[in-house]
């Protein structure tokens, strides 16, 4: 069972399935643990510190919960929860982006021809 419980109150305003909720939880976990991670990373990279301290820091960093890792975070579509083919500018998967763009919901986005 994971250490990180989801937020008691559901706080997503977009499309939600378990994957987006989980990703959201990971983002919040990372935000909370980031200063600690950076401190440990600093100790590890600092060659002027004793080797023992650095080794301990390495162990502590690896033993932190996996949800606090930034590599666990994945951009997902806010309209369909898809995990692949996301346009970062719009946080949408390619197909949802196309639908929205054709409908004219995205300011300034037009069909291009040149």
């Amino acid at each position, binding site marked *: 069972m994971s250490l990180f419980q989801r937020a008691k109150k559901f*706080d997503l305003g977009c499309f939600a399935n378990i994957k987006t909720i989980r990703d959201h939880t990971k983002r919040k976990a990372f935000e909370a643990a980031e200063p600690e991670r950076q401190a440990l990373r600093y100790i590890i990279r600092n060659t002027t510190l004793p080797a023992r301290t650095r080794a301990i820091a390495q162990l502590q960093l690896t033993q932190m919960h996996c949800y606090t890792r930034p590599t666990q975070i994945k951009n997902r579509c806010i309209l369909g929860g898809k995990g692949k083919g996301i346009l970062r500018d719009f946080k949408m998967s390619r197909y949802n982006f196309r639908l929205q763009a054709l409908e004219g919901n995205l300011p300034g986005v037009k069909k291009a021809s040149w």
Partner: protein
Amino acid sequence: MSVPRARMLELVKAQCQLFSTTFNPEGVRTGNKILRQRLKGPALAAYYPRKIITIRDFQKEFAPLDLMIDDEVEDDRLEHIAALKARGKGAPKKKNSAPDFKKK
């Protein structure tokens, strides 16, 4: 013409004192680049839009003032369920005891 290394080092040291930068002639790795990095947590956590307010919140807010607010989606759902019930097609009632598997 060449300037001795010691003199150059002195110059660099003076420069570092003046502009209060770190004097590190050997290029020892001190991990300062980690400290210089910005925290990206807030930006990452703001990816998904948050739920700000719901119709139910409105209803709760305005209930003391005797103001009614219609939640059309909820009303439709209840109406649909009532129609199903009337036709005898509603969801079954929840059983209080655990289901008996042996009985056939």
